[in-house]
């Protein structure tokens, strides 16, 4: 049993110069066989492992990761959490996730630094305004907190925004989800890893998948760099590589990958205490606890796995940020980076069974995977354990592209793709 993190363990370890902290999770060699092998050690994969063990009692589970935990999109996003999606299916799924976020630090005994500072979405045109009004109404019908702010209220909520007449991007209103906010991106991977490990899950890093052994339409084993691992069930949680692994397993996905960039500024004193997003001009911004401005840019339009994007994209975003927040004009940007996002034609994820028996797919989260991490893992664990989707993810099946039951969330997804 792991020792719990608490003020007392902190004090105790302070006395020994913090040299006596135990490892947060084991790093075992893979066993020859597991009931479930989860491919992908990002937030989604680790959350899935945790909920498989905790909610469904399946503990003979391995999470295999090609690199290090949370080194993919989990460590590359802009950490925004919200649930104000338009359609019922999405609203319920993301709202479930948000509710899990609210209790996560306590549940995992790991500070995920979830800060419900409010997420504001700006409207710059009459069209934006109508769309926003529709989405606020839809949110409220689904029990998701959402309210409308007039320009005056926008200024009160976020005083540094420039609302003088004649701006290039006039703000006509905004929606506000007060329960939305930000969280620590690494902490969600590490917290789930530690909690899953404590329940008996093996976490195996630096173990890329090289292929699958599929017999008579059923997956039997995963071929990895550390040898063949037999598996009762295989669950893919490899957003950014879903198509590549699906191809190894012999099926196709309606997913395309784009580079998506983010950047951070030099750290400054607290200046913006909420999240501001503008879908129309492609800018979203918040401030981390360390003090740097965290800024999300748009996607590059071409397919790409390079984990880096073009400068014109960041330039466009920064131009919009400077227009809305003139006081940031002289800020210097410290780092920019890119991730590879899975995007579906309807901007909604796939959490589903696949044409291969015993194999499951969780991907296509597009530009919004971080917020959904707990909910995604929770419903995916249910899908794997019961070989049936949970009602919350029943609509997010792979075959919705055949039946035509698409869930078009292009309006609520923050980044156009």
């Amino acid at each position: 049993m792991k020792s719990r993190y608490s003020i007392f363990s902190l004090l105790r370890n302070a006395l020994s110069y913090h040299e006596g902290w135990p490892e947060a999770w084991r790093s075992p060699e893979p066993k020859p066989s597991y009931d479930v092998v989860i491919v992908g050690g990002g937030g989604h994969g680790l959350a899935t492992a945790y909920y498989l063990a905790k909610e469904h009692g399946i503990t003979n589970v391995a999470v295999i990761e090609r690199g290090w935990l949370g080194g993919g999109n989990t460590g590359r996003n802009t950490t925004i959490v919200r649930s104000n999606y338009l359609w019922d299916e999405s609203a319920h799924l993301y709202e479930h996730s948000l509710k899990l976020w609210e209790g996560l630090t306590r549940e995992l005994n790991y500070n995920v630094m979830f800060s419900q500072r409010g997420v504001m979405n700006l409207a710059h045109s009459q069209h934006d305004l109508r769309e926003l009004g529709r989405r606020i109404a839809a949110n409220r019908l689904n029990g998701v907190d959402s309210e409308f702010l007039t320009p005056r209220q926008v200024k009160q909520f976020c005083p540094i925004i420039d609302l003088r007449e004649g701006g290039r991007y006039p703000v006509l209103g905004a929606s506000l989800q007060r329960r939305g906010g930000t969280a620590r991106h690494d902490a969600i991977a590490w917290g789930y890893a530690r909690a899953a490990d404590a329940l008996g899950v093996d976490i195996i890093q630096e173990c890329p998948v090289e292929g699958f052994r599929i017999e008579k339409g059923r997956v039997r084993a995963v071929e990895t760099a550390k040898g063949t691992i037999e598996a009762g069930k295989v669950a893919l949680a490899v957003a950014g590589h879903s198509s590549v692994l699906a191809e190894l397993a012999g099926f196709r996905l309606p997913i395309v990958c784009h580079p998506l960039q983010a950047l951070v500024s030099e750290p400054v004193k607290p200046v913006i205490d909420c999240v501001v997003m503008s879908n129309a001009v492609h800018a979203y911004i918040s401030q981390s606890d360390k003090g740097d401005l965290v800024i999300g840019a748009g996607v590059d339009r071409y397919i790409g796995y390079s984990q880096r994007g073009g400068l014109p994209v960041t330039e466009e975003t920064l131009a919009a940020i400077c227009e809305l927040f003139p006081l940031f004009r002289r800020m210097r940007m410290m780092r920019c980076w890119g991730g590879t996002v899975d995007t579906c034609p309807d901007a909604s994820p796939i959490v589903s069974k696949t044409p291969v028996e015993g194999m499951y797919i969780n991907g296509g989260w597009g530009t919004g995977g971080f917020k959904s991490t707990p909910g995604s893992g929770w419903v995916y664990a249910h899908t794997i354990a019961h070989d049936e989707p949970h009602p919350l993810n029943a609509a997010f099946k792979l075959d919705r592209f055949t039946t035509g039951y698409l869930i078009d969330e292009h309006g609520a997804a923050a980044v156009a793709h």
Partner: protein
Amino acid sequence: MLLIPCPYCGPREETEFSYGGEAHIERPKQPEALGDEAWADYLFMTGNTKGVFLERWVHSHGCRRWFNAARDTLTNEVLAVYEMGGKPPKLEKRSYV
């Protein structure tokens, strides 16, 4: 930023171009005979190769002509460009996992 060799104008910056997605997708010859699965395959199951990918670009802010390109989606090297309707050049297969 990509430097894309337009077959008509020579190498130009990426911002002059617009992307047209996967190349060589053929419209179904008999759409009315297609089942749901075949439609889904045609409409949604696009290529998403990590490696050499054949795709279409249009030189929007230049000659405004469409062309095909073979690009490595991991390294972003544009390995070949060729005209619309043309056969893809023989290239060494690159695959990454």
